[in-house]
C-alpha cells in the first residue's frame, strides 16, 4: 500500500502517533540541561534539600514521629545528647549536655549542660528547660511519649545541672534521649507565651522554639518549608543562610529536579533502581551511609501454614539471604549476620545462625496437600519488599505450593497486631528499624507483642522478661540470650543491614560528617561548599 493511498484522517493520525514517542525520545536523549554536567554551587547562600512527600505531622518534637520531617525537627531543635555523626555504630555523643554521669543502677542521670546556648527567642538555655521539655512530652502524649514515662523527677540544683531520676532502672534511657525522636529542649518562655489551649501545639505547627542551628522562617505544609540560619547558634555555622525544603510528591519529578540542579541534595528518598545512574558518576556525589535499619522477614504463627515451629524455620531456611539481598537491594545493603542491628552488640555476639537449606522446605512441602496456598505480604509502594516477596513466592511455587505475593497498605500492616489472623502467612519488610540504638529498642519493638512492630504477635514470655531484665542492667549477655531464644521461634529473620542513600551535587561538602546513624537526615550546619 502506497502512503498516498492512505486516507487523510489516517495520515494525520499516523503523524500524530509518531509525535508522542518523538517527544519521549527527545526527553530521554542527551542534551538539554539534564545532560549530567556538574551544577554550579549557589551564590545566594541557599541550600535546597528536596523532600519526597509531605512531612505528614507538624515538626513539633513531641508530636513528630515519622520520617522526612526530621530534616526540620533535627535542624531546629536539639536534645541533651545525640548519636555521634559519621559513625557506623551507635555512640552517645554530647549535644546540649557536655558530660553526664549515671549511677550504678541506671536510675539517676546527672547532665552538665552547655554554657552560652540560647533559644531562638533569645532566652538562655538552662536546666529549668529540661523539666519543662519532659513535662510537655508527657502532656502532649504523642507516639514517642514512652521515652519519658519512667521519669520520676527532674531536679535543677543550678542553671547548668539537671538531675533526672527514673522510677525504675533503665540502661536505655540515654538512647531515648539520643534518639531522633527523643525529647528536645524547647524555650519555656516561648512555650508559655504561645500555649493556647493545646500546650503550644497549634503554634508549633508552623514555628519552632528550639536551640538548633536553623529556625523555621516560613511554613507551607504540603508545599515547602524554609529554614533560616540562627546566628546566635553556639556550634558550627554553615555558609548556607537559608535552607529550602520543597516537597515533591513524585520520585521521578524529584530526581529530575536534582538532575536539573534545582535541588542540592536528596536524602533517603529515591528508589534503589535509580542508584546505578549515580554510582560512580563524575558529575554527582552519591553516598551510602550507615543506619540502624534492616530488611526483615516476619512469619505469622497464627496461620495454619506456619502453625509449627518446624514449618516456620523451614521457610526461613529456604530464603537465599545473600542472593536475595544482592539481587534486590544491591549496594544499599549487606546481608545481616546478627539478630539485632549492626553494631548494637559489641563483637557481633548476637550471631544469626540460620543457614540456607532449601531441602528442609522441600521436605515440608511434600507433607502438604497438593496446591496448598499461602500468601507473602509486602507494604504497598515498597518496591524492594515487593521484589523479595515475588522471588520467594516463585521459589515456593516451584515446590508445588500455591504461593502468592500481596500488597498491604502500611496502616493495615500495623493493624494486624489486633488480629494477626487477618495478616498474610509471612511479611517482607523492605526497611524498618528502631527509634534508637539500644538493643532493647530493637528487641522490644520487634519481638514483644506490645512493642509495635511485632505484626503477628509472635512472642515468648521468657524473651520479654529477659529483655526487661537486660534493659535494667544493660547486660549484653542477657540481650544475646533473649535474641537467641526468640530466633528459635522461626518468626523472625534479619535479612540485611540497610544503608541510607544520600545524593548530592558535587559542590556540597560535609555530607558524611553531617550524617547520623540514628536518622536518615543531615545536620545542615555541617554542610559547606567546595572551594
Amino acid at each position, binding site marked *: 500500500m502506497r502512503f498516498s493511498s492512505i486516507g487523510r484522517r489516517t495520515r494525520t493520525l499516523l503523524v500524530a502517533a509518531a509525535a508522542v514517542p518523538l517527544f519521549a525520545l527527545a526527553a530521554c536523549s542527551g542534551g538539554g540541561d539534564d545532560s549530567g554536567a556538574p551544577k554550579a554551587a549557589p551564590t545566594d547562600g541557599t541550600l535546597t534539600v528536596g523532600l519526597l512527600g509531605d512531612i505528614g505531622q507538624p515538626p513539633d518534637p513531641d508530636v513528630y514521629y515519622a520520617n522526612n520531617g526530621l530534616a526540620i525537627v533535627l535542624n531546629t531543635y536539639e536534645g541533651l545528647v545525640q548519636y555521634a555523626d559519621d559513625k557506623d555504630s551507635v555512640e552517645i555523643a554530647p549535644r546540649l549536655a557536655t558530660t553526664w554521669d549515671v549511677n550504678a543502677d541506671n536510675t539517676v542521670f546527672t547532665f552538665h549542660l552547655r554554657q552560652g546556648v540560647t533559644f531562638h527567642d533569645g532566652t538562655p538555655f538552662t536546666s529549668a528547660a529540661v523539666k519543662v521539655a519532659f513535662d510537655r512530652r508527657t502532656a502532649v502524649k504523642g507516639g514517642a511519649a514512652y521515652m519519658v514515662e519512667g521519669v520520676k523527677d527532674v531536679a535543677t540544683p543550678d542553671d547548668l545541672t539537671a538531675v533526672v531520676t527514673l522510677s525504675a532502672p533503665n540502661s536505655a534511657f540515654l538512647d531515648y534521649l539520643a534518639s531522633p525522636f527523643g525529647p528536645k529542649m524547647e524555650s519555656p518562655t516561648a512555650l508559655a507565651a504561645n500555649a493556647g489551649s493545646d500546650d503550644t501545639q497549634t503554634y508549633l505547627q508552623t514555628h519552632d522554639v528550639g536551640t538548633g542551628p536553623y529556625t523555621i522562617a516560613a511554613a507551607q505544609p504540603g508545599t515547602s518549608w524554609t529554614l533560616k540560619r540562627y546566628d546566635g547558634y553556639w556550634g558550627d555555622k554553615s555558609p548556607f543562610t537559608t535552607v529550602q525544603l520543597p516537597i515533591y510528591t*513524585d520520585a521521578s519529578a524529584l530526581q529530575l*529536579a536534582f538532575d536539573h540542579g534545582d535541588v542540592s541534595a536528596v536524602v533517603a528518598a529515591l528508589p534503589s533502581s535509580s542508584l546505578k545512574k549515580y554510582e560512580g558518576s563524575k558529575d554527582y556525589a552519591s553516598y551510602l551511609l550507615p543506619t540502624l535499619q534492616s530488611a526483615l522477614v516476619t512469619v505469622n504463627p497464627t496461620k495454619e501454614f506456619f502453625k509449627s515451629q518446624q514449618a516456620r524455620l523451614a521457610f526461613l531456611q529456604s530464603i537465599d539471604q545473600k542472593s536475595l539481598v544482592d539481587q534486590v537491594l544491591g549496594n544499599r545493603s549487606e546481608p545481616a549476620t546478627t539478630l539485632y542491628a549492626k553494631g548494637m552488640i559489641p563483637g557481633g555476639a548476637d550471631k544469626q545462625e540460620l543457614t540456607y537449606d532449601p531441602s528442609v522446605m522441600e521436605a515440608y512441602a511434600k507433607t502438604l496437600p497438593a496446591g496448598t496456598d499461602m500468601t507473602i505480604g509486602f507494604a504497598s509502594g515498597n518496591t524492594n519488599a515487593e521484589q523479595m516477596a515475588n522471588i520467594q513466592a516463585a521459589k515456593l511455587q516451584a515446590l508445588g505450593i500455591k504461593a502468592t505475593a500481596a500488597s498491604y497498605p502500611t496502616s493495615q500492616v500495623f493493624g494486624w497486631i489486633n488480629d494477626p489472623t487477618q495478616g498474610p502467612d509471612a511479611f517482607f519488610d523492605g526497611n524498618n528499624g528502631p527509634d534508637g540504638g539500644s538493643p532493647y529498642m530493637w528487641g522490644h519493638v520487634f519481638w514483644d507483642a506490645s512493642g509495635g512492630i511485632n505484626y503477628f504477635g509472635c512472642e515468648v514470655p521468657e524473651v520479654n522478661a529477659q529483655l526487661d531484665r537486660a534493659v535494667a542492667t544493660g547486660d549484653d549477655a542477657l540481650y544475646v540470650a533473649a535474641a537467641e531464644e526468640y530466633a528459635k521461634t522461626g518468626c523472625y529473620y534479619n535479612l540485611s543491614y540497610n544503608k541510607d542513600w544520600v545524593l548530592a551535587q558535587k559542590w556540597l561538602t560535609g555530607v558524611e560528617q553531617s550524617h547520623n546513624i540514628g536518622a536518615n537526615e543531615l545536620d545542615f550546619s555541617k554542610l559547606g561548599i567546595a572551594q
Partner: protein
Amino acid sequence: MLRFLLRRTGALAVVLLVLSAVVFLLQQISPGDPARAALGANASRQAVAAERRRLGLDDPLPVQFLRFLGHAVRGDFGTSYRTHRPVATDLATAFPATLELVLAAFVVALLLAALFAASSALSWPLAGIGRGVLLVVATAPPFLLALVGIVVFYAHLDWLPGSGRGDGGPGSELAHLVLPATVLAIAPALAIGRILRAGLEATLAADHVRTARSKGLGQAAVLARHVVRNSIGPSLAMAGLQLGFLFAGTVVVEQVFSWPGMGNYLASSIPTSDYPAIAAVTLVLGAVYVVVNTLADVLQTAADPRLA
C-alpha cells in the same frame, strides 16, 4: 422553574446524605488502625488503646455516624490523624489550590476544544496534525503525559517549572500552572471538542447558513452570527460534566506535579487510613461534582424551559 430548583436542591441534599453514609461505611470496613496511624509504628499498645478511646473508635457505629454527620454539617471534619491539624484548616489551604488548577484546566480545555472543533469543521490547513496529536495524547495515561511534559518542558527545554505552586508571585504561579493545567485539560478538551465539532458540522450544513452565505456574508460573520450560537448548546452540557470530572482528575496530576491541592492531600491520607481527611475530601469533591452538574442542568433548563 422554582419547582425545578426546589426539586434539584432536595435531590442534592439526598445525594450528599447518601454519600456521607457510604463514606462512613467505607471507613468502617476499611482495613487499618487509625489510632496506630496517628501515633506511629513504635507507640506502645497502651498508648494506641488510649488513642482509640480518645478518637471515639470504640463507640457503637450509629453513635459514630451521628457524630460524624453532626460535625460534617457544621463543616467540622475533625482532626487529621496524619497532620494533627483540623481537617477544615488543611482543606482551607488545599481547596483553593485545586480550584485554581481546575479552573485553569477548564479554560485550557475550552480553548483546545474550540480549536479542535473549528479546525475539523472548517478544514483549516495543517489542523489535522494538531487534531491527531490531541487524539493520541488524550489516550495516554495522565501520569505518563505529566512525566513526559516535565521531562520535555522542564528538564530539557527549561521553559516551564516542573513542580510546586510557585513562590507566591503571580508570574511564578502562572508559570507553575501551565503544565499541570494542560495535562489535566487534554482529555476533557477532546470530549468537549467532539460534541462541539458535531454541532458545528450540523449547523454549517443547515439551510439558514447556506442562505447567509448566498447573501454574500463573509466566513467570520457567518460563524459569529449564525453558527457558533446555534452549535454550542450540547457542548455546554458536556463542559459542565467535564468540569466535575476535572476535580476527580486532580488526584494523579497533583501528585506528579507536587501541586498542593485536595488530590495530593487525599493521596497522602489514604495510606495512613486518615479517615477524617479521606471523608472530608470525598464529601467536598462529591458535593462539588453534584453542585456543578446541578448548575449545568439549571443553565440548560434556563436556556430551554421545555427541559424543566
